[in-house]
């Protein structure tokens, strides 16, 4: 291995593996990346261990790409270790950037999640109610497991993060742009989200189909309507997070005739993606009649889960109130 090449590490925390896939999906371009850097740690693909990272000098890794939210003490420990060893840390993908889908766990806590997962799901057969413990003694030997937190965290709630690569998973061109910006030293100011700072609607092909005054009389879920492949989703009464979501994704969902779910998170001007979308949606409800308003509001089955699908841990409230969880 040549020591002149910058060292790069990849790590995953609470994630599905899709972000790892996004790196493999660079296809032939990954060869260019591999030619330009030394990958020193990548548990999903290469056989380097934690002790190998511990043995490296602090700051010796040029950049660590960390995907996934932080849910376990082990993930926190690894994130902190990589932070110490790296000059730059990039939060790779929605979970690491905003909390992502695992972040929806913040509507519960450890106790209720364990009860559901190990006791009450229909497929669970666990009469002794065995749950994972941090310490277990088997034949006089102590076994340990990482601690499971009540709350899921985005990466920057646990360590200092330099850049964010948004998306579930981040698209190829954004990853390549980020890698080449790092290699060429042409980096934006610290803390930047590496995608254009405007809303998805700005780039959306369906923007022109949007009426001058966009209004909604009834909210429908995507399976309840035959979706017009050309028309603005909101104009069809279907919730689309586009107005409150950052662009740069290449409209993969829109092109598959599915509305935006908000995985890129908000633009820099917005503090709380869900609240901002709630505001926009309530504004375009076309009624002044209280009963009709109630009907429309009722038709939105799960507002919190819909508006904060990817961003709950980094939202203003961040989680459900602990004392309200039963």
């Amino acid at each position, binding site marked *: 291995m040549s020591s002149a090449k910058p060292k790069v590490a990849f790590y995953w925390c609470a994630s599905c593996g899709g972000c790892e896939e996004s790196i493999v999906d660079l296809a032939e371009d990954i060869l260019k990346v591999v030619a330009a850097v030394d990958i020193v740690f990548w548990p999903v693909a290469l056989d380097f261990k934690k002790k190998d990272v511990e043995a490296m000098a602090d700051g010796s890794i040029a950049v660590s790409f960390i995907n996934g939210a932080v849910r376990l003490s082990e993930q926190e420990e690894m994130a902190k270790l990589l932070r110490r060893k790296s000059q730059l840390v990039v939060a790779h993908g929605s979970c690491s950037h905003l909390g992502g889908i695992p972040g929806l766990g913040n*509507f519960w806590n450890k106790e209720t999640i364990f009860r559901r997962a190990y006791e009450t799901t229909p497929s669970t057969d666990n009469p002794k109610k065995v749950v994972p413990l941090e310490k277990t003694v088997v034949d006089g030997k102590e076994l340990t497991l990482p601690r499971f937190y009540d709350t899921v965290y985005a990466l920057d709630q646990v360590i200092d993060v330099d850049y964010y690569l948004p998306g579930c998973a981040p698209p190829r061109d954004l990853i390549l742009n980020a890698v080449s910006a790092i290699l060429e030293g042409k980096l934006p100011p610290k803390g930047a989200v590496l995608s254009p700072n405007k809303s998805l609607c700005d780039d959306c092909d369906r923007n022109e189909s949007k009426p001058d005054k966009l209004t909604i009389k009834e909210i429908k879920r995507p399976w309840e309507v035959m979706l017009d492949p050309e028309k603005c989703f909101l104009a069809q009464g279907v919730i689309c997070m586009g107005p409150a979501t950052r662009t740069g994704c290449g409209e993969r969902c829109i092109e598959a005739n599915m509305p935006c779910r908000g995985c890129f998170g908000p633009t820099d001007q917005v503090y709380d993606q869900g609240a*901002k979308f709630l505001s926009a*949606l309530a504004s375009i409800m076309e009624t002044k009649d*209280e009963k009709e308003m*109630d009907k429309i509001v009722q038709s939105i089955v799960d507002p919190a889960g819909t508006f904060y699908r990817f961003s709950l*841990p980094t939202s*203003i409230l961040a989680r459900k109130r602990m004392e309200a969880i039963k």
Partner: protein
Amino acid sequence: MSNGQFEPRLVGFLCNWCSYTGADLAGTARMIYAPNVRIIRVMCSGRVDPQFVLKAFKEGADGVLISGCHPGDCHYQEGNYKALRRYKLLSKMLEQFGIEKERFRLEWVSAAEGIKFQAVCNEFTEQIRKLGPLNIGPNGGKHE
């Protein structure tokens, strides 16, 4: 805490044209009412971004009041209808976060309704006093 009882901390977003003037009337008329509502004047109830409400709760408010002109009386024609729609949707969402409906209130108070403003403040304070502190605090999103 006075007399050891829980004093709710309430935030009120009042519109400039009706409700703030109504509150002003209550004050100049020397009406006595619960001092728990910290008033923030906004130009219109329709200007109240749901982010303001969440931030108030996050930073320690036990209850949040939005008050605007009566329907049909909005200085900007429809701002209060917008506030009402947001209020309904936000109330539903706040319950999912474990924040009771009673902690978030919308009231129409005109510039002439000092007496109504007095009653709203008293009622709201008592209601939240019964519910107790919200206890989410500014540390909710920090590491445990």
